[in-house]
């Protein structure tokens, strides 16, 4: 199960979500697909992949690959973790 770091400060710009890690003062911007993933957390990889697949008409493998890329980018920045 993937979950958001509860300390992250979120600024919603409509089609873009800007995340700020308050301890690191690092910013990370999510596009619409990334925002879709973030807003569903906590969630499993299967669930997030399924959402991308149906929202953007992706193949199951492409949706899973895209979700994994976003989650890994978020995890390496301590914005999410997997429990």
């Amino acid at each position, binding site marked *: 199960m993937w979950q958001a770091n509860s300390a992250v*400060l979120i*600024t919603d710009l409509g089609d*873009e979500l800007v995340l700020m890690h*308050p301890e690191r003062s690092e*910013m990370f*911007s999510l596009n619409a697909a990334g925002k879709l993933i973030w807003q569903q957390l906590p969630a499993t990889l299967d669930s997030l992949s399924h959402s991308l697949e149906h929202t953007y008409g992706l193949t199951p493998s492409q949706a899973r690959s895209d979700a994994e890329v976003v989650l890994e980018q978020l995890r390496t920045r301590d914005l999410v973790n997997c429990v």
Partner: protein
Amino acid sequence: MNSWNSLDAQVQSELTPAQDSELRALWENPVLHSQGSESLAPSAQAAVGLHSGRRSIELRGGVPPLPAGASCASLTLMDSRVEAAWNESRLWLDDLYTEVGQHSSRLLVGKGGASAAAWALALTEVQRAGGWLPLHAAVVARGEKAVAITGVSGAGKSTATLRLLGLGLRVICEDRAFWHAASGEVRGLDRWLRAFDDSVDTFAPQLRAQALAQRDIKGKLLVPLTPDAGAAQLIEILALGDGNVMNNAGRVKLLWETTGYPLTRPARDAAQHGVGRLLPLLRAQTVTRQTVLGAVQELLES
């Protein structure tokens, strides 16, 4: 019990007269009924506290023990270190405990008292939760329109503010501003503009006669301000820089650095909302030391 006002909150204090007096010097201001607030929708009026009872802040003694599982950090503010712990809406700062709420908050101080830094952090957190976004920015006004100037330390904010005061504009604050996200009203909590003699002599010599006899601990002159002369709406925020254009992420980062980071959930929820509302007021292109005065005057005269 002492009763006084801070932004839109009614403060009920059972602290000692000395403690109460110190806080009032930094946090008390009168209630202002701005046109902006009166024209708000009922839901926003309730948020401002105009109809459904004002926000309340209670100050008294007694600190509950720190629970297991609280987040902890050592924070530095005002050149002093504060041991902080927080858990959802509860905040411990040294020997000061705060229950932070949107409509009511309680601050309980232990027998050892609390440092000025701890009080500042706690009361800022309480005001955040009440919908007031703190801004480390100077605010200058003409009539009911106000412009904020922000920037990193040394960028020229204080000099620009001194020059604008010398030009006859009203300085609402030097660097302690609070912006109300629901109404757009901006308030200041500074009583003076602090400046070294040579700055006053160079940029606004006519203000020297207004300076108080006493000086601050750094030897700066204290020029009285009139932060509560009237309600003002913030129309734009200018960031001092080299004239560069900031992207969205850069603008968001600057606003978070200007407002500071909340600790408790009620303050974080309100601040996130506030930053989103404030972002459209932040000009993407920074102003320089050379262009800031003209930019402020143009905005306030338009």
